[in-house]
């Protein structure tokens, strides 16, 4: 049962890695504009027309 300690520590380390990634994303400005991203993902490129 004491293996649970090792599992918890391991889980915390892995989760900590994700937390670090999150903090990097915040610093990189990815959370500054929460509305633009929501709109941008729904925009489509129109089909390319044949140009003369």
């Amino acid at each position: 049962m004491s293996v649970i300690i090792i599992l918890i520590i391991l889980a915390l380390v892995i989760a900590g890695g994700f937390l670090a990634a999150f903090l990097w994303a915040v610093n990189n400005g990815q959370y500054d504009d929460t509305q633009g991203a929501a709109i941008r993902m729904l925009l489509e490129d129109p089909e390319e027309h044949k140009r003369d």
Partner: protein
Amino acid sequence: MASLTATTCYHCGQPCADKLIAQDGHVFCCTGCRAVYGILAQAQLCNYYELQQAPGRPAASHQRFAWLDQPELLSRVADLVTPARVSLNMQVPAMHCASCIWVLEHLDRLLPGIIDSRVSFVEKQINVAFNPQLVSASQVASTLASIGYEPVVAGAPDQEAAAHKRQMRGIVARIGVTGFCAGNIMLMAFPEYLGIDADVTPALREIFAWLNLALSLPVVLFGASEYFMGAVTALRTRRMSLDVPLALGIATLFLRSVYETLTQTGPGFYDALAGLVLFLLAGRWVQRRTFGSLRFDTRLQQYFPIAACQINEDGAEKYVPLDQLVPGDRLRIRNQELIPADGLLQSAAALIDYSFVTGEAQPVPVNQGERVFAGGRLQTGFAEVVVERALDSGRFSRLWNHQAFRKQGRQRFALRLEGVFSKYFTAFTIALALGAGGSWLALGQVDNAWGAFTAVLIVACPCALSLAMPFAMQAAMHSLAQLGVFAKNAQAMTELAGINHLVFDKTGTLTHAGAGSFSYHGTRVSDMEALVASVARHSSHPLSRALAEGLPRPQQWAAVSHLDELPGQGLRAVARGRHIRLGSADFCGAPAMVANATQVMPEAAAEANGSRVYVSIDGLPMGYYELQPQWRPGLAEMAAGLKKMGLGISILSGDNAAQAPVLRELFGSDTELHFHAQPEEKLAAVEALERAGKTVAMAGDGMNDAGAFAAASLGLAIKDDFGSFSPASDVIIEGRRLPQLHLVLAYARRAYNNVAFSFLISLVFNAIALWFAVTAQLSAPIAALLMPLGSITVVLTATGLTWLAGQRLVKTVNQHAQTLAASAPVTEEEKPAPAAETIQ
């Protein structure tokens, strides 16, 4: 001929009045909109129209961005300048929908040379990266302008926005860390929740407790750091703030939990602690975002009701709003006017008073070709200035809000309520927490004591006070700005509600500044009209403006020098070698003339109910211009409305008493009238009223009665064309809005009442929540949830009610204005029209 159906423009959605411009099967209201459509169609960007109906804005006039091509200036505004790539941030206020994002991020199709463009929708900013060898910065900006997205390039990095961004990022990071810790703490607290028997592995309980303690450290040290620092600041400056009870609550939970872990007397409250901090941070983030966007909108849409007189190439003059000035514009500045932008002096040497900007009372002589700075007041004559750098809204707002114009003295109406409340609220909260905790302890219930203590500290929220007032007032200012009423700041807006006496100036305030007919009595000299017009146009006094506008434009303007304006007396200058004086009878040496006139032309004396501007050339009085005042419509109704609100009215005029009967008819016989009032007398009258305990608003020009303006509690500048600006004014009102003044003041009172009402709601909310907290029925995390919910509700209620009332006011005022216009007597300009029709 196309039928006049209600067609709307495909691009901007405005109704196409009489012109229908068609292309590709679509209809446009003007060539501007059609041009934008053409540009987009050519670049295969018509998806713009698919994403949203009529996404465009009506085309604005073309602006020049040539200054962006100067390397020193460009390097100051761009964030990256290399030979192959320049990265430039621009503000695009016109961005408002999905279509906007789409077209702005596909700029490379529009203008080859643009490498990339990225939009930040919330901040309404675009970052454009382009190749400087293929395309220039001014081309990029012009392209944006040509498709309807007029860019604003900031002169200096926006400190406020950068600080706001850093703050928001800090909160998001803290939420992430606190959430991470809270989730894991709660996982480890599971055995406690589920009541699992510790006998199986007794060491586990201890290990989990220590792990929880370790996880709570980032929460307390990083997540809650803002609250602790805020509390320390508050204690150091001896000013109570909300952070103090919150920091106390967090510290209590933490210390108690550590104590329990160390002495192994219990599992501690780590989950409650982490949950508490998480909800507090989340609440603060939502608050800042909501309030940040409210503030943001007001800042960008701030109407600057100031216009500068721009001279274009052929010498014609036009008033251009301050925020549309660009480097290279030529401006005419009149005597006593403020210089609206940094630039170079083109005309002869001038004397400039920079006391508004630097505080120095000594005017500074500036020679031709030297630099002049925005905010300086022209002391002598007139000037022509070429704009070098336009005044951005932030700088202008700072000028208007300068320390020099803060009214000292009496405790302002607005602050009284706020000050009393906030000072005592936090102290009361702490006292209540201690009392509740102590009572439970006395009853022997330790757990409840802790619970009550922390819950009281956390849930009590005086936010309504510091937040509801400014936000509701900003909503009010926004609505009023749509009507042409501009308040300097939220405080000025609040003061409007506390007015109980109005003092009106007559000329230019109750009468139109420019319009009205005039006649000349006296001897005429050959080029007298040209001389008078040339001199008068350099003054900002309403009578001078009336003369300058009414007299025919001379073949050639006379060169004017040695211009000097004496308040209360008149204007003197040298033109074409002759000394010209315009002004009062005494100033022009014409008292004898007055007596003569009455004898020689008795009928003229009988009709002497206008304002008189005497003229003297080289010391000899020539005659006078009699200007018939044109009263603004609807004054009687306005006066009645004001009286019904309980406002006292006085009228001060520097003119003669000829208009007394008219004024008495409009304002009632019980209104105080003063005539022949020199500026000192106006000041004395206002001071007397203030000393008598009244809160006075002075409605006037702001320029010629500046002293009285400053002495009054509130200065209302009534402007017809915004050419001149007095920073000592608290509220600027468009002249056409004066007849609806009573509606505006009633609205100001309603806005204030909304705020007071929101205080009441906040009190009720606090009372209920505190009841639950004191009786130990409120857990810390729930308290943390309720607190921001309460404050947001209160603030949004106050702001929402005020904004709704504001929109209703806009409708009412517009209707009122329409009925006034419909019932107005036919003016001079309308007469030619019927004649034209009969010819056809």
